[in-house]
């Protein structure tokens, strides 16, 4: 948990206050809003770090960033769902698991 000021002090984030406020306004990063101000969890900081890499090292511009983050959120959303599915499959009897694996394999090959 970090405040906005603490985040700005972190070297790896490489952001000035103006940029950070813009990111929050655009909802590229969504820290929690508390009475005392913004609160950043670890995932928010990691996401900010990723955004600054995308901006500074990979030259993704503003318009591109919307697309990149949207696809990224979809990708991780799907991964999470995939994980839940995989978990559900592992709870099935072995024959059912075999069937599911066989179907997926078949669809992969066709």
């Amino acid at each position, binding site marked *: 948990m970090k405040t906005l000021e603490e985040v700005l002090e972190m*070297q*790896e984030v490489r952001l000035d206050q103006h940029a950070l406020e813009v990111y929050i306004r655009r909802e590229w990063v*969504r820290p929690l809003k508390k009475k005392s101000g913004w609160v950043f*969890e*670890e*995932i928010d*900081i*990691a*996401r900010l*770090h*990723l955004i600054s*890499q995308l901006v500074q*090292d*990979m*030259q993704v511009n503003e318009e591109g960033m919307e697309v990149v983050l*949207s696809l*990224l*959120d*979809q*990708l*991780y*959303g*799907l*991964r*999470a*769902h*995939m*994980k839940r*599915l995989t978990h559900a499959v592992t709870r099935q009897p072995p*024959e059912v698991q075999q*069937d599911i694996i*066989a*179907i*997926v394999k*078949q*669809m*992969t*090959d*066709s």
Partner: protein
Amino acid sequence: MAGNPYDILGVKKDASDEEIKSEYRKLAKKHHPDLNPGSKDAAAKFKEINAANELLSDRAKRAAFDRGEIDMEGQPRYQQQRQQHSYRDFADGQQGSRYHYTASDFDMSDLEGLFGMFGNRAGGREGFTAGRRPSADVNYVIEIDFLEAARGAKKRVTMPDGKTLDITIPEGIEEGQKLRLKGKGAGSLESPGDAYVEVHIRPHAFFTRKGKDVYAEVPVALQESVLGGRIQVQTVHGSVDMNLTKGANTGVVLRLKGKGIKGGDQYITLKIVLPKEVDTELEQAIRTWAETHAYNPRVSMEAVT
């Protein structure tokens, strides 16, 4: 880290700063681990690319490397920090749902699509599937009972996408055979594609089969074997009566013509089974009989050893 930073970035020794920067960006975009969460190699590759760039974009370090004074070690500052705050770690974890786009409104009918997306990757270039039109055909696997396969059956099954499919299993279907259900694929109304159902047959407790012929071992009582008579035998089409000749022994194979699958035969192998308990009456009868009828069924066995 060992290795040559020029090779890693794929640039010549006399590459300009601009060239190095440009190549680095290209590779970084391609290999950033947060953008390639499914790839195990991406993190290591990305680390390598960054180390190479760190070295070559620093004039003094690059010159020292060119003179052979240093090798490619010294982790860039960048790396150690990345370890602590990899977005991938959090996005895949508990907190990740805060940003996940599809987490709450995921429709179970997308399930098939979810598995299907791996299908596209197998054929086309990796990560380049958008332009490829997926086949409207779908493949399923079902498992049926031995008797359903032997006699034919109608099955209604629920597919992974929630749709139900009525399948007519033809009499005598073979293990692994594929049925084609025309127009039952996953495509649009105009071109629905076909569903292919691969059929697997569960083994039966008593029957086995070879093509159209069915095989079974049939237990017979001691008196049935010795005296002969009518016994009832199960076939895939129900039970039939048959005559046992006097003295029909264990291992004798009898054919029930036309009682197999689709006009095939059923073969039964007899197996003499003693009563659960050998009482004094049976013991006495055999004892009396044996006094004058000694025989050795292992003669042929002894001959070969």
